């Protein structure tokens, strides 16, 4: 599941279970008849083209064009991968790759940045969540499938990708030249005590080591006196389903439902439940989300919200709640198909709707940029190797002054208040849909 970024799909295990579970049901004669007459029409169209189009087109190309047309009409995450693209996808999921460091998806028909991943070239260059990539290497991205776009953006570290981005908030077309790098991602970040009792941890995505690293960070914070937690899932595009579940499990526990999937086939209906004992069942917590929180982030936020285990603060999340399966075809190509949707424990569908925060705190693009910039500058200064002149950075940081992270500040205030009045915050007895805030 890390659906906005296809490469991780095969690694999720979900693809595998869908494949194995696909049950063969013989079609009814009526279906067969309908299928035959539809195919009939298609073949007559194919013949018209083969005979009358001004030049000869290989039949395989015609068939592939047709398959692509069918898949393109499904949804942005379903697609046909020819042999070459499929092979590349498999290679990419196995090894490291050079890339820009963005999660992308197709939204409103535009190739859209879900979020730039921290510490990557794209992040440093200033790409932002919601940016529309309209050109790659001077060519329009219209009609480019997600897989093709990812393939164009990836490449050998050290090479340069030229893209043009349309920023919807300003309408400006901005060209970028970004040098690709090896993308290795540290997913647990900035674990710290914000005040004496309120801890902070940011998850940039859900990857294999996220669960273990989060444990380490939380144990450490606990030792240092943490009694409440801000879990920051802003701009977290998701990742591995199992890991998102593992994270939710740490806070919820008690054999409670965390998320379930539902498709048309029974085999695609799977429930994911927590273990009996949660590692951190009762520390008051606020989960920060924004429009860049997608998929796995939405699963965690949705479960915590439904069970009343914590308070969701920030902006409505991205709304990526579908499961894709990769289905290989006999000629070496493959189909990536949306086969199920995620639902929160109370039965809310995440797809397109997202998770609505309990407390809405909007931040403007400008405010967010300032916070990101400040964080980056502070990091550069704190990790400063001796001898490097960082006076320019220091001056810039000073100029930024108190670039307030409104969402974090409100979360900390809230937790301090909750600690002061000693409210119980363990998961509730039953999941419920909270009233959407006005």
């Amino acid at each position, binding site marked *: 599941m890390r659906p906005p970024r296809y490469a991780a799909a095969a690694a999720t295990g979900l693809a595998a279970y*869908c494949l194995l579970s696909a049950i063969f049901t013989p079609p009814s004669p009526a279906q067969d008849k309908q299928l035959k007459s539809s195919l009939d029409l298609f073949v007559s169209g194919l013949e018209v083209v083969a005979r*009358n*189009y*001004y030049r000869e087109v290989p*039949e395989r190309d015609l068939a592939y064009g*047709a*398959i692509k047309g*069918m898949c393109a009409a499904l949804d942005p995450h379903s697609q046909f991968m020819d042999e070459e693209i499929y092979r590349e996808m498999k290679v990419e999921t196995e090894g490291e790759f050079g890339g820009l460091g963005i999660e992308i998806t197709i939204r409103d028909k535009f190739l859209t940045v879900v979020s730039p991943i921290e510490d990557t070239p794209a992040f440093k260059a200033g790409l932002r969540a919601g940016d529309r990539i309209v050109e790659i290497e001077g060519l329009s991205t219209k009609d480019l499938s997600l897989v093709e776009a990812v393939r164009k953006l990836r490449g050998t570290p050290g090479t340069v990708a030229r893209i043009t981005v349309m920023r919807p908030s300003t*309408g400006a077309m901005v060209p970028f030249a970004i040098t690709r790098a090896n993308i290795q991602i540290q997913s647990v970040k900035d674990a710290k005590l914000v005040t004496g009792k309120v801890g902070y941890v940011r998850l940039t995505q859900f990857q294999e080591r996220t669960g273990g690293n989060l444990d380490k960070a939380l144990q450490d914070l606990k030792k240092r006196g943490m009694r409440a937690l801000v879990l920051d899932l802003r701009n977290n595009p998701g990742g591995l389903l199992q890991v998102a579940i593992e994270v939710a499990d740490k806070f919820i526990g008690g054999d409670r439902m965390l998320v379930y999937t539902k498709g048309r086939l029974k085999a695609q209906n799977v429930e994911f439940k927590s273990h009996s004992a949660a590692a951190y069942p009762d520390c008051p917590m606020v989960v920060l989300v924004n429009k860049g929180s997608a998929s796995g982030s939405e699963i965690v936020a949705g479960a915590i919200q439904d069970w009343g285990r914590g308070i969701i603060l920030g902006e409505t999340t991205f709304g990526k709640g579908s499961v894709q399966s990769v289905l290989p075809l006999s000629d070496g190509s493959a189909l990536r198909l*949306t086969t199920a949707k995620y639902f929160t424990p109370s039965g809310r569908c995440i797809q397109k709707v997202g998770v609505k925060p309990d407390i809405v705190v909007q931040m403007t693009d400008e405010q967010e940029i300032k916070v990101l910039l400040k964080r980056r500058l502070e990091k550069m200064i704190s990790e400063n190797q001796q001898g490097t002149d960082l006076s320019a950075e220091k001056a810039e940081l000073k100029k930024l002054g108190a670039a307030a992270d409104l969402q974090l500040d409100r979360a900390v205030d809230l937790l301090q208040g909750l600690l002061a009045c000693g409210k119980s915050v363990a998961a509730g007895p039953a999941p419920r849909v909270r009233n959407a805030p006005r």
Partner: protein
Amino acid sequence: MKNRALRARRLSALLLPLLLASPAAAEKGPGVYKGLDILCDVVTIIQRDYIEKLSSERLMQDALRGMLNSLDSYSTYMPAASVRGPRPSPDKGAGTYGLEVAYKDKLLTVVAPVEGGPAWKAGVKSGDLIIKIDKEPVDDRPLAELIQLFRGETTRRLELQVARRGEREFLDFTLLPGKIEGAPARVEMLEEKIALMRISRFDTETPARAADLIAKLNREGGDGMVLDLRDCPAGEIGSALAIAEHFIPSGGLLATLSGRTKEAAREFRSGGKAPHVVGPVVVLVNAGTSGAAEVIAGALQDGGRGVLMGQRSFGCAFEEGSFTLKDGSVITMLTAVYRTPDGSEIQDEGLDPDVEVPLPAVAPGEAGAEEEEIALAEDGVERDLRGVKGVKVEKGVKDEEGLDPMTQRAVDLIKGIHILEHKERS
């Protein structure tokens, strides 16, 4: 897995008799239509596993559309439900927008507005990318529908939002259909008997008009011509071929048409029509030169009758055919393409000018200001430039020099040729 493979084979078996029955299949023997088994496989999987249940009918419509769209950006598939009957005779007062659009690099692009038409008057320009039509993103609309929208006579008011190179913001235009005003061809004697002939569109009356104008120039002793075909998007290729006969001697090849079958192939030769154009010819072309204009420009270039100057032309010269399938749906596609006498395909490639004149660099926010003023001076027709940002035009201001830089360069070239030919100038 195994079961699926079996099922796919069964579907292919269903198709086989049908294929063998068709003449094309019989010609080619077994193994025709490679990839059909994969297509059947995909249909089966989607119908079984996809999150929503979809009818095979809908899937096959998407498949046909995908197949046609994969060919080029003109060919379309229209399902029976969207096929309209014959267009009702236009309402009184109906007109056109005078706007030629096409997909270029998968973006809906203005080839050029037709000079003197509503879009041209409103300030739409060649190369504008259409983002929204009537406030709806273009992406959401099928190509076939868009083509219908821009073609033919109508009374419908159209709102366009376009992106223009060098502009920081989108531009909005409201187009009311109307008449194309002004003559399709006109001439002007410049200096030293060198004439400027401007053809802005190739319609049925253009050849007769052009013949009159050429005769007039010959009476005035014209020697050398700048043929301005910039931003000339519309028209009938037959009209362009007829005019080419005044330039190319009898028997000279003008263009060829080639398709999938031998029957589709045609050759067009000049009858060497009088009056003949006298002297060197320089043809001005740009990215708004398309279709009929490209055919005549190609004939002059390959026939050694004219030097092409400017920028690469648009690349669009074809014949299309419509085919109705048995459920009433319609396939429209390219059935033949025009080639220049040397055999170069115009479609998608465009014509490479002999003398490339790069477009002036445009600073953001000042897009085309210079070009705009020149256009005014050149044609003397007042354009409605309201709503065009960053363009300041004072009414009636004539360009001091009189000629735009490209025309000036063309005149220089003709003068140079004259000198080299040791012509005596009076």
